[in-house]
């Protein structure tokens, strides 16, 4: 029954999406408001219908309806309820349906929140979002149906079909349960309950800015209207995607057992590309809002952000690339490729058409190199270069070489570690300079004056690091740039608050609250910069100063790395409730001869594959990461890999700051009485 309900709701959602698409197109072409209202109603209906459909699938997963092939392939009777929930996105069909649900949720929100203010753009917005939704729902219905069930044909063959085939009957459920596959062990991690939803919320969220952009292009209203409507949606999608990337890093760190969190894997890179494009857009859109410039560039960024989402979806879900994150080879590759190509070409074609009509012409020219808009544009150039470099390394070089050369080439971590650090360094430099520059014709002298305080504050931490023994030029340069960017953001916040304290006699907490209230976008942005700085500190530390060793030890023997000593004490095996065999080593970790932790690195042996779970001693200074990588039959000798990851926890803490900053920036502006006080000195300082 659940399968019928889920499939029925899915089918109705598809019909509603197509209806909304056609009605919106008609409303746009014939200027019919009644058709537009019909389009809105049909579009709004897709979310509750998909909620119903996915609820049916979730209930089937929780209740163990193993006749549904998706339930059979991602759970088994031993799967705990917690992981039955995460199994919803544990494989292609479920995650595709979940993707559509989130897409419809965004459409629902965008239509309700923007209906009155942006009514003229609504035909285009509804048409684009519903075309995208209808496409993904068609994939679910025709190629990756999560409600297909197993049937036994008269000749005994097991068939998989959404509807009962002629002459077939339902198989025995108990026997199906006994053969169920169970969830991929790699997905049995707490992070999996939140990492994919965050990532998908990020991916699907970019459809709204894209839809507004296309609606503006189609309608010819290329004033700042569409930009105003899309900025907050972009910020939301960008935040979720950033969180998804960070949580994915944490999952890889905990589960994949290689001691790192970012492997420059093509699927990771596919998710990074729209995030980079979104970051560039969030900066350059300010220039369009404040100066009426970069109108064509912003349009292209929005188009490329969503195009990158579609390409990433195609690359991940088609089986085109090999990755621990990718789905099995699937038939949806070609339709996804065709849809990606079509959407990108249509969007670029419309942009070119409007550009030729002069509707995307800038209102001003750039005044000088040291103006804030010029620095923002240079930042965009670096983001574009990063995009190209990462796309080339992940997809361009392998695919083009396969066509042009005898032997295809792949570019590994070496390539990315050579190409991206200089570009990130320039980004941090610009992140430090841009807030100090004024809009328009700012002078280098003013920039230099503004830099004095942050530079002075950057020097003491650098000196401390040098005294602590970190004397390599690349590390000092990297930490110098990152700290400078953070100091600039911090000083800007303090400067604004101090101005309020002096002008209004407010206490510091009052001044800070009022400051953030008054200009959430700007000061939320500074908190994001602080978050990125903290992430940068963690990334540099854990990349440049990671230390590692590996040895086989007998019980009682030790290995040392830097001033740490690891002693192998014991080995045991136990069977867990969910059927996995736990092989656990007990080790003692000491530092300078002082006992600091007893860790239990282990191997979880699932029927499908073993998983290496690290024992981690975590502190602000570093993580000591211990892997049990092998053992003999009796457990008398075991092999350990010991890794020291300096400052790695800064990566996760910076993520929290980034989240806080984005929420501040995205929160709707509500000017309190206190924060509305405006006088010229304050305005001048905060301009």
């Amino acid at each position: 029954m659940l399968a019928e309900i889920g499939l029925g709701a899915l089918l109705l959602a598809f019909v509603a999406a197509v209806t909304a698409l056609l009605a919106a197109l008609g409303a746009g072409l014939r200027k019919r408001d009644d058709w537009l209202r019909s389009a809105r109603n049909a579009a709004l209906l897709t979310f509750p219908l998909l909620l119903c459909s996915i609820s049916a699938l979730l209930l089937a997963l929780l209740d163990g309806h193993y006749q549904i092939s998706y339930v059979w392939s991602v759970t088994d009777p031993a799967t705990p309820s917690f992981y039955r929930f995460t199994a919803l996105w544990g494989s292609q069909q479920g995650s595709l349906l979940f993707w559509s649900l989130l897409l419809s949720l965004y459409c629902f929100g965008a239509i309700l929140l923007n209906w009155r203010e942006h009514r003229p753009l609504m035909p285009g917005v509804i048409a684009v979002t519903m075309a995208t939704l209808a496409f993904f729902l068609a994939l679910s219905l025709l190629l990756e149906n999560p409600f297909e069930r197993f049937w036994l044909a008269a000749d005994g063959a097991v068939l998989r079909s959404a509807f009962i085939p002629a002459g077939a009957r339902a198989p025995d459920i108990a026997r199906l349960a006994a053969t169920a596959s169970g969830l991929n062990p790699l997905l049995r991690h707490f992070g999996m309950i939140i990492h994919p939803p965050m990532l998908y919320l990020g991916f699907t969220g970019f459809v709204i800015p894209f839809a507004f952009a296309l609606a503006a292009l189609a309608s010819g209203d290329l004033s700042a209207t569409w930009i105003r409507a899309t900025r907050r949606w972009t910020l939301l999608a960008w935040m979720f995607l950033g969180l998804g990337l960070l949580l994915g890093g944490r999952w890889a760190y905990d589960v994949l057992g290689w001691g790192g969190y970012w492997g420059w894997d093509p699927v990771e890179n596919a998710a990074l590309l729209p995030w980079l494009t979104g970051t560039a857009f969030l900066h350059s859109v300010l220039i369009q809002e404040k100066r009426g410039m970069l109108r064509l560039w912003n349009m292209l960024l929005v188009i490329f952000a969503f195009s990158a989402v579609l390409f990433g979806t195609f690359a991940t879900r088609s089986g085109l690339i090999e990755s621990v994150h990718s789905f099995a080879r699937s038939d949806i590759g070609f339709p996804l490729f065709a849809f990606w190509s079509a959407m990108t070409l249509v969007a670029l074609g419309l942009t070119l058409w409007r550009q030729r009509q002069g509707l995307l012409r800038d209102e001003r020219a750039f005044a000088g190199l040291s103006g804030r808009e010029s620095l923002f544009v240079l930042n965009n150039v670096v983001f574009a270069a990063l995009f190209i470099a990462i796309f080339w390394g992940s997809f361009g070089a392998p695919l083009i070489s396969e066509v042009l050369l005898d032997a295809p080439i792949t570019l590994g971590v070496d390539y990315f570690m050579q190409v991206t650090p200089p570009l990130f360094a320039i980004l941090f430099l610009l992140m430090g300079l841009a807030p100090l520059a004024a809009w328009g014709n700012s002078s280098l002298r003013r920039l230099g004056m503004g830099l004095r305080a942050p530079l002075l504050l950057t020097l003491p931490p650098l000196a401390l690091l040098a005294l602590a023994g970190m004397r390599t030029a690349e590390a000092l340069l990297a930490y110098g740039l990152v700290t400078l960017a953070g100091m600039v953001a911090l000083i800007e916040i303090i400067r604004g608050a101090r101005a309020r304290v002096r002008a209004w006699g407010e206490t510091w907490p009052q001044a800070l609250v009022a400051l953030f209230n008054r200009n959430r976008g700007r000061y939320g942005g500074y908190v994001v910069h602080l978050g990125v700085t903290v992430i940068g500190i963690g990334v540099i530390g854990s990349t440049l100063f990671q230390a590692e060793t590996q040895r086989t030890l007998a019980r009682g023997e030790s290995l040392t790395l830097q001033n740490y000593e690891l002693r192998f004490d014991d080995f045991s095996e136990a069977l867990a409730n969910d059927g996995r065999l736990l092989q656990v080593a007990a080790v003692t970790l000491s530092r300078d001869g002082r006992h600091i932790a007893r860790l239990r690195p282990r191997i979880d042996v699932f029927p499908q594959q073993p998983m290496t779970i690290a024992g981690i001693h975590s502190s602000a200074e570093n993580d000591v990461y211990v892997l049990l990588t092998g053992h003999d039959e009796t457990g008398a000798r075991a092999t350990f890999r010991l890794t020291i990851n300096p400052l790695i926890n800064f990566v996760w803490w910076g993520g929290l700051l980034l989240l806080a900053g984005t929420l501040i920036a995205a929160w709707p502006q509500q000017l309190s009485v206190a924060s509305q006080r405006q006088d010229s000195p304050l305005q001048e300082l905060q301009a």
Partner: protein
Amino acid sequence: MTEATWEKTALAARRFRGRRRSARRLHFLLAGLLILVASAWLILSGTASGARYFITVDELVGNPQWSGKTVRVSGAVLGPSISWDPDSLTIAFTMAAIPAQFDDLAAALHDAVSDPSVSRLEVVVPDQAKPDLLQHEAQAILTGRLGADGVFTASELLLKCPSRFEEAVPDPAIAGHADL
């Protein structure tokens, strides 16, 4: 006369401002161009040094041009040949050639290990704990170099067992066919 002087001064000031604006725009364009050229150089040099040719065991064994070069090679692991020294942490095994293109990875791996006539490659992986996925008929993807002694020394070892997560249909006997 006064008016004419004023006009000349205004014209000169406009020209001066125009020249200044052009110079600033030029500075700005040069800065952007510099970043782009530097990025292009980074990408090209990174590609030149980081490129790894992905070849088959057949191509590696049969072509001396690959000897001594860092390449990626893929093949099927022969289970009985696997040895691991826990003290030196060195793995050694033999890998059989699989074709560059195939429809079914599991079948390609099975055919490769079953056919004694296909090319084979001796592999050594130093400083490596023994991975659990290193077993008979696993696909190994190695990055390393072929030495003059004909042994491939790998610096990176990736393993895949195709049967693990393939979506399947339950065995009819278990699914209830026995009741019929």
